[in-house]
């Protein structure tokens, strides 16, 4: 009898995946061993469901009545075999998800919650479950590294906090630091992690600096005092770390006077708007698109930007915070921009895969999906015929630019933050000069 047949006689009750399994020389470890499951259900153990629904945040998992509405709208389901209802069924069969790779697939994009008639809230369930997995020491190494960076350096990349405002040097305008101004400002700009450190984020930061300056806004940044907002760490399961970062930011902000807190990152916007108040930090916070949209009449566009553009709604600006109009108002204000919507847009926007810690877990997610969410999204953008994919979340330029390359669309789709497009139309000479310099 072959090994495979002998193996086939084993009962692997309650085990959904075997970590390491080689059968007849074929490696069926992990995901591939799902075929080894005992087919007949011998019990409906409730321990796992009882345990999860006993966790703060896990309660609503029990409310699932298995309509399956969440499955077709789950971005992971489009590229893999995963969805909230499927998670519920696993739990109903006794899997506490602690060792299940599914635990790390959710991007907290909130599209399931949008359609769920019973309001089963993965945005609360996932952080609660991941926190338990982290406590049990079973989190992906990639995530561990990011958490360590956030703790030690205050940013996920592990960059020096002193370099947080280095982008400002090349902005071409003065970038005021609030501690150096020593006075109240109208607008404090929270730059955020990827805008501060990623080269493509830097482009957006500099564009924002120029636009604010031209508009005559009284503004400043925190500079090296700024730390990560912590929101993605929170949904990735590190609530303690989130609270630490939040407390540090709240303390820093308490030293200064400003009317509005304007943020570049929708994740940071979500944190400041919805999660900092409970920790004692309440601000008049706006995403930068919300701040700029009412000012379009004051913007002087010196050049047409002849572009057919599609727009990717960030989950944390759209579904999480119900803002769909401000980015579109800005895009439509730019002379020469033609906006073509993708099939999945606004409330049904397709996730880029970066949320919920996904930004840091591509290598964890990759084995479970046929392609990355960013790749799928890029295909959808290319199919519109637009030459530009406009974004307004700093997670996206790097994700989508990688996806443009990996899907073989290099040269066909230009990924641009909306602020870059605004800046280009307002300050064309800056771009002409830069390009001339580059040549």
């Amino acid at each position, binding site marked *: 009898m072959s090994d495979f047949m002998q193996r086939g006689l084993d009962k692997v009750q309650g085990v959904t995946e075997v970590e390491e399994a080689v059968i007849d020389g074929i490696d069926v470890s992990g995901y591939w061993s799902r075929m080894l499951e005992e*087919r*007949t259900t011998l019990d409906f153990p*409730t321990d796992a469901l009882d345990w999860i629904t006993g966790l703060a945040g896990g309660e609503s998992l029990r409310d699932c009545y298995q309509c399956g509405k969440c499955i077709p709208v789950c971005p992971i389901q489009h590229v893999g075999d995963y969805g909230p209802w499927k998670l519920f*069924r696993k739990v109903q069969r006794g899997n506490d998800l602690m060792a299940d790779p599914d635990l790390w697939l959710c991007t907290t994009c909130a599209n399931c919650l949008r359609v769920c008639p019973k309001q089963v809230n993965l945005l609360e369930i996932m952080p609660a479950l991941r926190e338990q997995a982290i406590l049990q020491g079973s989190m992906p190494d990639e995530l561990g590294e990011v958490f360590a960076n956030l703790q030690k350096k205050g940013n996920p990349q592990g960059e020096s906090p002193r370099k947080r405002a280095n982008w400002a040097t090349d902005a071409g305008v003065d970038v005021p630091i609030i501690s150096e101004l020593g006075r109240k400002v109208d607008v404090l700009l929270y730059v955020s992690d990827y805008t501060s450190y990623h080269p493509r984020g830097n482009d957006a930061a500099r564009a924002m600096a120029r636009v604010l300056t031209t508009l005559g806004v009284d503004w400043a940044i925190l500079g090296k005092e700024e730390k990560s907002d912590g929101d993605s760490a929170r949904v990735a399961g590190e609530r303690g770390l989130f609270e630490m970062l939040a407390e540090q930011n709240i303390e820093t902000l308490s030293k200064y006077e400003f009317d509005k807190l304007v943020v570049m990152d929708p994740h940071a916007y979500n944190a400041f708007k919805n999660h900092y108040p409970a920790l004692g930090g309440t601000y008049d916070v706006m995403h930068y698109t919300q701040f700029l949209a009412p000012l379009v009449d004051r913007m002087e566009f010196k050049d047409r930007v002849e572009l057919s553009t599609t727009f990717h709604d960030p989950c944390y600006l759209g579904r999480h915070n119900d803002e769909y109009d401000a980015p579109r108002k800005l895009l439509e204000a730019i002379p020469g921009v033609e906006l073509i919507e993708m099939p999945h847009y606004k409330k049904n926007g397709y996730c880029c895969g970066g949320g919920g810690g996904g930004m840091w877990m591509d290598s964890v997610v990759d084995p479970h999906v046929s392609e990355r969410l960013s790749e799928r999204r890029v295909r959808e953008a290319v199919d519109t015929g637009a030459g530009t994919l406009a974004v307004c979340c700093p997670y996206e330029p790097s994700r989508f630019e990688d996806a443009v390359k990996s899907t073989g669309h290099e040269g066909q789709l230009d990924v641009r933050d909306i602020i870059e497009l605004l800046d280009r139309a307002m300050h064309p000479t800056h771009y002409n000069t830069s390009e001339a310099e580059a040549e």
Partner: protein
Amino acid sequence: MSDAVLVIGGGPAGMEAARSVADLGSRVVMVEKRDRLGGTPDEAGYAALTPSFESAEEALDRMRAGVVDRPEVTLHLGSTVVEASGEAGSFSVTLQNAKGERVTEEVGAVILATGFQHFDPGRETQMYGYYEHEDVITLVDAEKMLKAHEFVRPSTGEKPRNVAFIQCVGSRDRRIGNEYCSKVCCGISSKQAIEVRRLVPDAKVYIFYIDMRMYGYWENQIYWPAQEEYNVNYIRGIVTEVVKKGDRLLMKGEDTTMGRPMEVLMDVIVLAVGMEPSLGTRSIASIFGVPQNKYGFIEVPGEPMDAVTTGVSGIYVAGAAAGPKDLEDTVSMAGAAAVKAVGLLRAKAKGAA
């Protein structure tokens, strides 16, 4: 020409119809085969009503108070209709009591409120073993235990660890001949599941279903609390076999959401038996020559906009004599039947004058 309405059946439908006719100022002749009013909820000993959890006894007492000791109502308890003749406006109906004594009443209109009976699980075609295994019971049996505020394994008297409700027993089944949904069983099972969880908090309670039919407010008043607050486990898929294993019951079926077989040990299995026309409904239909549908319930040709007028002029129907009904349907039909019956009497009286 008679100014009286005959109400046949003393359950919720009959009591509400009689009260309504009397309230409209007409005379009622009421006949009930048992020695007391209350009908099936009384005879089967219902404990708590669905979805309100109100005591069935208290609710029935209120209904009884609407008909007893009223000058408009002549009550014939322990009696049945044995003969009828005549037509709308002037029926002549012969009643007979247990002693064989007969009395003839002249009435202008008739309301049939002869109700349903619970499906006999011995007729089901799966192997549920109601007559083989003591721990396989029906909703009616469960209700009796719940009324006594206990829920145990009938075979041992011990508290059960695993309790299963199996839905659609005798309903939605062409093989059995009952193609209709019995309408109330999903709600009653869920109500009982809540009561079982209250009485035996350590028990796991499962409901195996094809579709949960929790229409209207039953959804949020019964189904959601059962699932969300009382942790009742709803599993889609119907059980097709119950066999003895040791001193427990091995329940076999297919979990259709997962697409795989299930074999789970249970301590008590409750069969959610549906509704069939009562013997009284079948016999009264033939006595009055009222057309029945293929299932034996009284036919209501004007449905859905007229839910109470039968195929015979002057004869109306209320409650589960006309098919599966919940209590809301039942009392609503009773009121509508009363209005139509009294309306007919008045029209006839006007015509005669």
